């Protein structure tokens, strides 16, 4: 296996692992949102501004989970594509070797058609891989967008929390955990994108 395919395998496999971490964190956010909702409910008027925010956080977490679930399916098909491309490339290389080894063979020309076909299939795989990588990058961009939005909301929550009297600390803790989670998601997804962006244009 050459370095290019090896790192392609690693890149695709790393997406799956980064995404499963994102999933865990997104679930944490959704839990934090439920928590915040309960606190805001108890705080009543003091946390009036906080209540819609909790719904919003919850919505965001749900969307992130859905998005990651669909990206995971995509990443799996990308992995299969990588396996397939690897297989086609090996075959093509072997067919080229056959052409070299069989120069003086009576039926050497009969391998021309399989060789040509193998080349086309291999190139198709490579093209499809690049196409799929581009789409995956777009989807990852959407997750990053959610993470950025979550951070803005967290900042707003902090302001709202300051109005909440004795609930200030617990609401601030919620804001803190949303911010931290969003930050983690942002970093993980960023790593996926860097790993993949190598394969977008080469």
């Amino acid at each position: 296996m050459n370095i290019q395919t090896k790192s392609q395998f690693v890149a695709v496999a790393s997406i799956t692992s980064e995404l499963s971490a994102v999933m865990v964190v997104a679930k944490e956010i959704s839990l934090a949102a439920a928590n915040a909702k309960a606190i805001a409910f108890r705080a009543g008027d003091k946390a009036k501004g906080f209540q819609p925010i909790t719904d919003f956080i919850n919505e965001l977490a749900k969307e992130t989970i859905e998005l990651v679930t669909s990206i995971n399916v995509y990443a799996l098909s990308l992995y299969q594509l990588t396996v397939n491309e690897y297989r086609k490339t090996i075959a093509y290389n072997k067919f080229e070797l056959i052409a070299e080894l069989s120069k003086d063979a009576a039926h050497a020309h009969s391998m021309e058609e399989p060789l040509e076909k193998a080349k086309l299939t291999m190139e198709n795989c490579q093209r499809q891989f690049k196409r799929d990588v581009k789409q995956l990058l777009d989807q990852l961009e959407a997750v990053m967008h959610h993470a950025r939005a979550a951070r803005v909301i967290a900042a707003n929550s902090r302001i709202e929390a300051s109005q909440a009297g004795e609930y200030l600390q617990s609401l601030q803790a919620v804001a803190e955990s949303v911010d931290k989670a969003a930050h983690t998601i942002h970093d993980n997804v960023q790593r996926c994108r860097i790993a993949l962006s190598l394969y977008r244009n080469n």
Partner: protein
Amino acid sequence: MKMTKIYEGSHQWIMFGRDENKPSNIIDSNQYAVRTANKCLLMDPGGSELFAPMMAAILHHAPVEQITDLFASHQDPDVISSLGLWDQALSNAKLHAPALWEGFIRHYLGCESIEYVPIPDNGGTIKLENIELQLIPAHYLHSSANFHVYDPQAKILMSGDVGSALEPAGTPMFVENFDSHIEKMRYFHQRWMPSNHAKRAWIERVRNLDIDILAPQHGRIFKGDDVKHFLDWFDALQVGVAV
């Protein structure tokens, strides 16, 4: 890859082996082809490493589109791990292999275009234009579902791992002195063949066949009286010695 014609009549048998470019940590194997006017059958076509030299060698005898049939005596990697590559080169071929091993052999990723034709436990035939080859059960020798190929016209028995010897590179194609060959086969058969009972059943079956050439998957080919010498020697040997 060396090529040796071992039968020439209405059709041909060609043996391939002793590949000079084979990595030294991979055991040497013999591959066989039966060539009729418009078709070609490959028997135990070999491991992935052997695919390119094998194909290049066959192109001396047949164009790729006439390779219509493959046969795997059993599931071992030295027998058929090249399947995934043949699958991408052959557009219309069948693989005849033990039914019992189908789910396992498919792990070699080779049945996208190749059709897996399962051989039932009691054997069967492969028709190649106007000749018919018999698939002789050789279960537990050494694999739990195992077949040999008998050609009644050429009087050749392709005997898979039975009759094999692991020898250094460049070994001659034929057994020249049976007595001195015994030591090269003894441990292989004692260790790899698990069952005296299975051995007995096979010998009884094979003694009824008219055989001029016994062609194993490793080492040298037996000719004429040496076929009988081999059967007698194998009959007397205790196998399954690891337990």
